[in-house]
């Protein structure tokens, strides 16, 4: 795709990581003209300055309502901007709203050209959400590991066990009570603090 044909895309997102993930995807797909707007002050003025063909905005962004106003005050824009919606697009809308992204396009841009961009947005937004989830999980695993270390220390001290024996005791208790090792470890810490 030549630069001439590549539509100008604005990404409005306060999350720099998510915007970068989306931008990377768009560039891989051959879109070359991409501008990321992170600052929400005078958003419309910035958008008018870029004069984009397509605007992508995340749904956590209150400034989405600002974009809706562009349909009403189109005199200030080169071309009227209309949202990528008609009655036949309900599945695209559903997928994008669920993923947390919305697209606005300049009137006249062909629908066939928008669909792949929106699909890409949806998959990148979903990928970002998954990434965040994994990050959360890793964090809680780290947290668990710290708790288990502490509980092992308590067991070693109170029951005179070595490290392996303390861990085996934790694990077998967790299995017997059908709980996570982290939960058993936490209750040992709580109990030991109460008994101090």
């Amino acid at each position, binding site marked *: 795709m030549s630069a001439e044909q590549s539509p100008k895309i604005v990404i409005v997102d306060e999350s720099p990581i998510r915007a970068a993930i989306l931008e990377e995807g768009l560039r891989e797909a051959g879109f070359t003209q991409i501008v990321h707007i992170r600052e*929400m*002050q*005078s958003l*419309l003025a910035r958008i008018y300055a870029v004069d984009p063909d397509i605007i992508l905005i995340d*749904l*956590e*962004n*209150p*400034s*989405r*309502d*600002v*974009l*809706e*106003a562009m*349909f*009403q*005050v189109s005199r200030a824009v080169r071309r009227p901007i209309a*949202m990528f*919606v*008609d*009655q036949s*697009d*309900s599945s695209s*809308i*559903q997928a994008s*709203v*669920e993923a947390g992204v*919305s697209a606005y396009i300049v009137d006249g841009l062909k629908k066939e050209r928008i669909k792949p961009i929106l699909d890409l947005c949806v998959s990148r937004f979903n990928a970002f959400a998954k990434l965040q989830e994994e990050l959360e999980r890793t964090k809680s695993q780290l947290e668990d590991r710290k708790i288990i270390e502490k509980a092992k220390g308590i067991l070693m001290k109170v029951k005179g066990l070595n490290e392996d024996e303390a861990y085996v005791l934790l694990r077998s208790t967790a299995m017997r009570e059908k709980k996570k090792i982290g939960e058993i470890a936490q209750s040992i810490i709580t109990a030991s603090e109460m008994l101090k």
Partner: protein
Amino acid sequence: MTATLRIGFIPLVDAAALIIAVDKGFAAAEGLEVELVREVSWSNVRDKLNIGLFDAAHLLAPVAIASSLGLGHVKVPIVAPFSLGINGNAITVSPALLAALMEEIDGDRFDPLATAKALAKVVAKRRKAGADPLTFGMTFPFSTHNYQLRFWMAAAGVDPDEDVRLVVLPPPYMVDSLANGHVDAFCVGAPWNSVAVDLGIGHILHFVSDILVRAAEKVLAVRQIWADKHPDVVAALVRAAVKGTEFIEETANLAETSHILAQPERIGVDAEVIQRTLTGRLKISPDGTFRESARYLLVGREGAGRPEPVQAAWLYAQMVRWGQTALSAEALKTAMAVFRPDLYDAALGHSGDGQASTPFRAFAGPAFDPADLGGYLSSFEVGRRAP
């Protein structure tokens, strides 16, 4: 009957009936298990309601009408079996604009015609001096805020599209935008006017009840298709909301109501600010001047909960006046049918007979008659009516 519902809302005081209905257990008592979902934009609320991610929503009354008419977005018929609030907005101006207006004013400072005329003079002076046009913030193209600002200034000949700039701003950004001079004034709901006054950067010029005696602000919105399919759930939801308003309107419950609404996952501002809004006693100036109006925000009392089709007709007339759509008898009928007093009456076991609709009254213009929208609209000099 039991039903599980997801209901979207924007953190504003006129979501009170829904929040209280859920948090005080009135919804549960009706067999409804409700998850209230706090949203950040009206566009999100509209889209999530339209595609069924929400079963019901706290929605701007004009958005419910626009959605039913397919204006600005996909056409999804919406019905409003309950009115969540009447009035409740205010116009706040910067100290500089207030001073300019007071220099020009001829008459009562609380008379909207006098302030509008003063605004016309300020606008003319600025134009002569080559200054930028004044900028007014409001919340959404299809909003009462937009129409209230326009109605007010146009009464004195100020053209809202030519003589000033009207810009959409998310309510939480209004105060900052006024402070840093991005806007000279704004029209927004509670609590944002009070926040600007408390910070010393704004003066409340008007309660919108100065401009329109009684204007439908937010509605409880559901998809028509959903309402047709679940009449019992709609009725239960209306009854729960009515119980919510009864609780709110009881003076003895004021502190508890404000406390519940102030929670971070609900509206998330000081309980004291919410209390001011609910009592209609607002600090209007940083110097501590208070002003009180029994009509500042009506939640439940004076029949506020019963949707009145005449209100929908007036809102539709504004869409026509400002060029958002063309006048058609069929569209008017569709707009009026969004407001469903019959569903409200059925839920409460009222017959609805003898429930006369309150006539629509404003500080300017002729009497409003939905049967003669063309005549009503042609009486206004300023407008963007599509040919």
